């Protein structure tokens, strides 16, 4: 029987490699669970996350009616963690999408067209990068006013250079390759070349970068909320919960430990998955 040669696409190959990476699989599963819980928050949360009960403040884990205890205003911590996850994941992914959107557009233009446009765009990007990321985010929120949406916008802006540089680097090497030259010679318009030929070939580094970046964004958003610049009361958000709980760390450590652990787990899962994706997509590892 002739051995049938099954041709596998690069994507299938990458997926297979990813499936063999146990850490990445664990990360993906954890993320899937977190996403599921967030989506189902209205159904899963036992209580309204803003329902206060001053007579039941700082209840310990396992109190009847409060499986994970209650916070400084007697709100159910489990419900707040569930709803807070929704906010944190939304902000994390939302900020990455916004940053990636802008970063990809300017990175493509800078890399593909080169010349003065490249110089102008990359100098602006350098300006953004000259500031420590979180400091720049704080400055942006300070000028826009505190709030979750502004915090998300701020960390998005801060994230743009990361994507712009990744894309520009890939484009610079791609645009000299034969298939791009060929497309240009047969007269394909720039937009078509960029979207059909250049962008798809930059996707793997982009996916890896974005996965790792969601974790950073979640932490940055939680950090801004911790400083009082992000989510405002009574919104449940992990950074806010951590910050508010700090005041009660001696008598009710679960107030800050639980949201802290939630941030840790999600960010860790994203990092495992990101590392796994990088290994799976890295062409140098291909046999």
């Amino acid at each position: 029987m002739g051995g049938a040669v099954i041709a596998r696409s690069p994507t299938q190959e990458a997926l297979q490699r990813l499936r063999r990476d146990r850490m990445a699989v664990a990360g993906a599963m954890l993320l899937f669970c977190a996403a599921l819980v967030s989506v189902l928050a209205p159904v899963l949360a036992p209580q309204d996350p803003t329902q206060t009960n001053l007579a039941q403040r700082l209840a310990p884990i396992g109190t009847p009616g409060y499986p994970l205890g209650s916070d400084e205003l007697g709100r159910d911590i489990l419900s707040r963690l569930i709803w807070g996850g929704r906010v944190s994941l939304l902000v994390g992914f939302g900020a990455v999408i916004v940053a990636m959107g802008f970063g990809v557009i300017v990175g493509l233009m800078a890399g593909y067209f080169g010349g003065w446009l490249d110089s102008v765009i990359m100098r602006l990007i350098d300006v953004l990068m000259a500031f420590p990321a979180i400091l720049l985010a704080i400055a942006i929120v300070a000028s826009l006013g505190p709030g979750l949406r502004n915090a998300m916008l701020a960390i998005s802006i801060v994230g743009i250079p990361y994507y712009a540089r990744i894309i520009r680097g890939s484009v610079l090497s791609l645009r000299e390759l034969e298939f791009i030259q060929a497309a240009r010679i047969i007269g394909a318009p720039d937009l078509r070349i960029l979207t059909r030929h250049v962008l798809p070939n930059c996707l793997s580094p982009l996916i890896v970068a974005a996965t790792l970046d969601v974790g950073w964004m979640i932490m940055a958003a939680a950090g801004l909320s911790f400083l009082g610049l992000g989510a405002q009361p009574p919104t449940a958000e992990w950074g806010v919960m951590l910050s508010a709980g700090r005041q009660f760390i001696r008598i009710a450590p679960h107030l800050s430990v639980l949201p802290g652990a939630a941030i840790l787990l999600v960010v860790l899962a994203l990092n495992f998955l990101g590392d796994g994706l990088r290994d799976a997509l890295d062409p140098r590892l291909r046999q």
Partner: protein
Amino acid sequence: MLKRTCFLSGLVVVALVLLACAAPVAPPAAPAPAQPTPTAAVSEGGTIIVGLQAEPTTLDSQQISDYNSHRAAYGIYDHLLRFKDESTEVEPGLAESWEISSDGLVYTLHLRQGVKFHDGTDFNAEAVKFNLERQIDPNHPYHDTGEFPYAEFTWGMVKQVDVVDDYTVQITLKERFAPFLNHLAMHPAAMASPTAIQQYGRDFSIHPVGTGPFKFVSWTPGVEVVLEKNPDYWRGAPKIDRVIYRPIIEDQARLTELEAGGVNFIVNIPPDELARLKQDPRFTVVEQPGMHTWWLAFNHLKAPFNDKRVRQAMNYAVNKQAIVDNILKDTGILAINPLPPVVWSYTDEVTRFDYNPEKARQLLAEAGYPDGFSCTLWVPESGSGMQQPVLMSTAIQADLKAVGVDCKIEIFEWGIYLDKVIVPPEEAEYDLFAMSWIGDNGDPDNHLYILLSGDQWPPHGYNMGFYKNEEADALMREARVTLDRAKRTELYTKVQKLIVDDAPWIIIDHETQIVVMDRKIKGFKLHPTGPFRFENVWME
């Protein structure tokens, strides 16, 4: 008027007093090497290290407008009069006695003789004139040696200061002013050495020289202010050797430092830790009702807050008792009146707004808001006298939401916050905001007039919600120029009834002053105006 900082500090201030309260307690005559008195082990020596909430801004008492500076500077000075221990009644200070002319305009002060400043300068009538005119006369050669944020509030009614002889001073007022004696015990009435002011100029605030029980040693910004005992103090030398003030901003960090032994005296205890500390044999907890009030003010110039029914409804909607019992625990008492119960003329015969969400909904419906409305609630992230602003406001937000009033909380840093809420009516952007006040001098005028009179809208005073009640305003004006306490009490009682019924604020609590200190520190008493009197304190 109290400057902004005052809010917090407002409290402070007044300290008036010279530190030295101690006079009546006979101090051990000689610095005898540990010769314990028979009754109690009153020993010499020791250092008290105070964990303060924030860094002092100046040690020149006449320039102070915040609580922490007041506390750190207090021991360096004596004041013309002083508040009695644990009271805001005045008693002699550097002025041994005084007379008031029959028209209430001329105050003659007879000064104590033989008192010297720490730098050896004599204290006399010229020194008093120098100290007062430095603050109030823009042409005084040393007026530009500082900013005097409390000068207008404390001395605005003074027409002139005359030296009668070496130890007699006459202060003439422009109009009668009932609380004037109390002003003579406030922090701007601290007497500083004229020689030192001439020598250091603007740097006097970091080289303070007074006549008080403690002498200034050093100030390392951000680290500590060190004072040592004045062995020649005219009321008798203090028993402890040194007092050190360290700013430790975070409440938890301050508490940790106390338990680790880095400091042995702290302020602003987190309410949830208080019960544990009271049980701890290493510490003593000292408490005293404060001249403090915490409230949410309505912007009376904006609808719907210009409708009394809406304001009353929102008062009924908030479960104040639950906030006091569960969040503040033993660090505050329920307030039903803008005036704290420790201030004379206080009455509890006022309209009560006990928790009643049904009544709140009904009043809102009557006012035309059966489905409630939305508004913003401004809150500082922290601030002197603000207790737990975000936590308390979030609890209030939840209560208001239950009756349909949907408040969006906006949180600001304290300095920015004060700039945004202490503004003239045309610049006011707020709906509802959290504020607190600590009395400076124990007079009802210092709470009711300055905070709720129609004459005191910013920039003139601190009626930041722009409340106005003509009838109450007239009564308060009359009380300011009436010297008879019984008559004034009657006027202020009427004022309180009128104001509370109008519900200009949602009043939450009066904070209790609390310090926790090492059990070895003995003889310490809190003062309602805030500063610490260490001159009679000893350490076992």
